[in-house]
């Protein structure tokens, strides 16, 4: 299975729309799209996970790698559109406290 990934430039932000299941098989595909974006200083990257229904630990690892890269390259990373299952995963692992995760309704 493959991920649907497309990027859009919106108001100076790079939005990465991801669709599918992020697991051991598809994680590398996400890394190839996401990691280079975080290497640009000052870049603002938003990952839209509205169409992602499942992320496993390997998938989570990609976000951790991207966060570390963003921190060391002076870019920023924000996640949006997490469903309950995905949100739970970020919460259990404590990542919700070190990552910028947008709450759907409240943020608008």
């Amino acid at each position, binding site marked *: 299975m493959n991920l649907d990934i497309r990027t859009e430039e919106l108001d100076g932000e790079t939005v990465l729309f991801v669709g599918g299941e992020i697991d*051991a098989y598809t994680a590398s595909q996400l*890394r190839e799209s996401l990691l280079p974006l975080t290497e640009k200083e000052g870049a603002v990257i938003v990952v839209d996970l509205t169409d992602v229904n499942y992320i*496993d*630990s*390997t998938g*989570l*690892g*990609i976000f*951790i*790698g991207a*966060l*570390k*890269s963003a921190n060391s390259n002076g870019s920023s990373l924000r996640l949006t559109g997490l469903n309950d299952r995905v949100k739970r995963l970020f919460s*259990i*692992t*404590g*990542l919700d*406290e*070190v990552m910028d995760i947008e709450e759907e309704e409240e943020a608008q």
Partner: protein
Amino acid sequence: MADAYRLMQEQYVKILETYLQEKNETGLYQAQQFSKKVLENQISPEEVVSLHIEALEQFYPNLPQGARDSFDFLIEIMMGYGMAYREHQILRDKQKELESEINVAANMQQTFLPDEIPEMDELDIGVISVPASKMSGDYYHFIKDDNDSLGVAIADIIGKGVPAALCMSMIKYGMDSLPEQRLQPGALLENLNRVVEQNVASNMFITMMYGSYDPRVHHFYYSGAGHEPGLFYNYAEDRFEDLYAKGLVLGLDRDTKFREYHKKVEAGDFIVLLSDGVTECRTDEGFIEREELTRMIREYSHLSAQEIVNNVFYQLERLQGFRLRDDFSLIILRRKV
């Protein structure tokens, strides 16, 4: 090799001749048996065609030239199969080699895990840990300290299989190199986190739960590093609740602090620790719910802790058609009455 071919040739002529005379099922059965021998002797497809044309020339000396030539054509067609066949042989040998290497590694890995469950008057302990393939990314450990407290660790390394197993050995050595004196769960995770943070790739991480059971006061002290919540069974109220310790995964931030939680354990209560392979069991209908898991545990709760974990594993394995998607670990500590 050449002798084997000669021998096969004689046999082929014989069975083909018999078949052409009698034209019955016995003859065809002979052919089927022969095809197994062909494989055993590693005779390739183009050689089989050659066996056939040589036999035909013996039976029918006046074979039309066109028929004879057509076999040269067929041999050429079979060359591709022949090359694929030989490659297959070699890849199969290679696979066997890899498999035996992995078996050795898997045996080595087993020695990282406790070979027996500690015996305690106060606790009934059950453990099961099964890798999805040969090597596991799950780790568990028991430590009994001078005060007779029991330390229990459960950790899940990102991913599974060989890469996870390699990383797991680091956790094992990390645990071994911790200071001798008894560590509080939070301090232990802080120490371990520094080891992990220095030694893993940027997208690797480990989740872990560490708890310490003090049998004198029957308190369970625990801290978590992003690990799948466990369960606590309250015997008096016949009720399950989540056993969760919030904390960041190991390997992300060097200076992470871990909060310590505790729980009073009464007679008959039990603590369930698990890896996400348990809760991420996936059937055709979707993921199993935690309610399904608690229902199973309750169903077997009259059994010993070891029998409970064995039975729950069997049920979940069966639900998934005996194919594990992720490493599976389940630990139960029950306070004896």
